[in-house]
């Protein structure tokens, strides 16, 4: 599997750990990233805030170069992804603008390829079962709030791979890694985007609102697939705490970092130690929890498996014979043991008296699994009652 790769400016700068962990994700899951030759900045928000044609032309140059390779495009940065999807959509639906764009970039561009976000590439192209195969250190005991923000899911007409109000793709990835994805209300609420830089007094409030909702919903960390969300929630968490007077202390992870770590990488290999809110110790705590949970599960499994191993066939046969005898001699006593209701127990007694097959079956079940015997007895009685009712009619 090969895909044209557009890292975008952030993944080589402020979101270096997203870049490193995306490359690791590709290696682990077995797909090849073919970097788009001499790619340029997508223009981001500043582009569409300033000029519509420019905001389409800047992504279009990259997409036109990628189109020549015949490959679809992977853009992990949510902002680049959104601009690329917008460009594809606009060029496909507006032939006049398409002509202008081609003139501006000096290249042919038909918008025949598709841009993927990391979330839909992993869930739809690679497949969740492939992740499950590769996980060696499941993140059991991690309580994660999966944060999609705006650009991955809106507008749905452009993005379209997940629901705009209640997306699930990241939750499903995180669950496949063994973690718990908590339910929370702010998974697609805006973090303030560039307002964190340009108008911090407004941005801070929006950042604090997202962090607070995650914390109140029982999350112990946040997972993101957007460098700008990471910058706001991680780098600006301290100032959001100061502004709101609340302490959040929530580590924030890129979904690709968690994937690499659950598949055996050390946190340092994917640069989790470069975050602003200290994020390595929570991973250590999770791995401790995961070991405890795994030990408990093993114990339980052994407890269940142990008696079955010890049982020897001869003993069971003896037991079965004993039950057959008592069912033939004193069916009422066994019936009373199996069914509390006296009337129903009496019916069972009658049924069993005339039916060798049912005696054999019940004896087998009594010798191996009492619960199943109870269920079978109840079923016999219910069946008999139905028969009787039918004959009345």
């Amino acid at each position, binding site marked *: 599997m090969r895909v044209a790769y557009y890292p975008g*400016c952030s993944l*080589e*700068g*402020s*979101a*270096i750990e997203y870049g490193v962990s995306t490359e690791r994700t590709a290696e682990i899951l077995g797909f090849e990233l073919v970097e788009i030759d*001499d*790619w*340029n*900045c997508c*223009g*981001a*928000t*500043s*582009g*569409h*805030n*300033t*000029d*519509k*044609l*420019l905001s389409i*032309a*800047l992504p279009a*140059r990259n997409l036109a170069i990628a189109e020549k390779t015949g490959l679809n495009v992977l853009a992990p940065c949510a902002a680049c992804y959104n601009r690329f999807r917008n460009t594809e959509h606009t060029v496909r639906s507006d032939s006049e603008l398409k002509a*202008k764009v081609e*003139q*501006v*970039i*000096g290249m042919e561009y038909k918008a025949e390829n598709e841009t993927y976000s990391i979330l839909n590439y992993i869930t739809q192209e690679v497949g969740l079962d492939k992740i499950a195969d590769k996980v060696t250190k499941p993140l059991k005991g991690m309580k994660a709030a999966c944060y999609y*923000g*705006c650009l991955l899911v*809106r*507008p*749905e007409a452009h993005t379209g791979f997940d629901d*705009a*109000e209640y997306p699930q793709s990241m939750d499903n990835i995180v669950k496949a890694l063994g973690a718990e994805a908590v339910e929370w209300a702010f998974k*697609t*609420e*805006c973090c*303030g*985007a*560039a*307002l964190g*830089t*340009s*108008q*911090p007094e*407004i941005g801070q*409030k*929006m950042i604090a*609102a997202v962090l607070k909702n995650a914390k109140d919903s029982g999350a112990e960390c946040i997972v993101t697939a957007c460098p700008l969300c990471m910058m706001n929630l991680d*780098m600006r968490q301290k100032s959001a705490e100061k502004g709101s007077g609340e302490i959040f202390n929530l580590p924030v992870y890129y979904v690709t970092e968690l994937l690499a770590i659950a598949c055996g990488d050390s946190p340092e290999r994917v640069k989790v130690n*470069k975050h*602003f809110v200290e994020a390595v110790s929570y991973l250590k705590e999770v791995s401790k929890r995961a070991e405890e949970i795994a030990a408990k599960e093993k114990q339980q499994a052994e407890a269940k498996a142990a008696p079955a191993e010890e049982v020897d066939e001869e003993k069971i046969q003896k037991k079965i014979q004993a039950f057959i005898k008592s069912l033939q001699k004193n069916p009422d006593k066994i019936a009373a043991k199996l069914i509390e209701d006296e009337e129903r127990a009496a019916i069972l007694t009658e049924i069993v008296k005339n039916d060798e097959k049912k005696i054999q079956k019940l004896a087998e079940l009594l010798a191996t699994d009492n619960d199943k015997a109870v269920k079978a007895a109840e079923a016999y009685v219910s069946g008999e009652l139905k028969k009787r009712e039918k004959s009345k009619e």
Partner: protein
Amino acid sequence: MINDAVKLKPADKADKDLLAKLEQEAGTQVSLCYQCGKCSAGCPVAFAMDYPPREIIRLLQLNMTETALNSNSIWVCATCETCSERCPRGVEIATLMDSLRREALRRGKKGDNKVAAFNDAFLRTVKMFGRTYEAGILLQHNAVTMQPFKDAGLGLPMVQRGKINILPVRIKGRDQMKKIFARVQEQREEK
């Protein structure tokens, strides 16, 4: 009070042309809006706006486009698209905000707003290098907006973490970038 009343004026040709241009750019129609307010209710940044999204649309409906262009709302809007996604009438409110911002810029209405200054700084580095140059953007933005120490506390930790390139990354096709910006400029002037 009668003095607080909003005086409406009938739309002349210039007003109609302006609205048509904004709507065409945004690919939407303000007349579709029936003022339910769902956009304002869901807007995460309405608390900081002088006119919440519903009122911006109302201003356009009432031929008060000038007021909308002068509002701070258009600069506070984070383009999160929640309004457009939830609008029961399919009005593309977020892209309309985009059109309004660009129209305000064309008319030189940057006011004291720091958003336009940030965008300028950002795009200048893209035009020069083909990539964003975060260190350069921050320095230029701080200089233009006269806040030299803004985010200074974050600059050093960014460098220490290897998260900011001190020197810009330059692409090979820098001449293509200059051409793209120049041709876009030509198109804008033709209009």
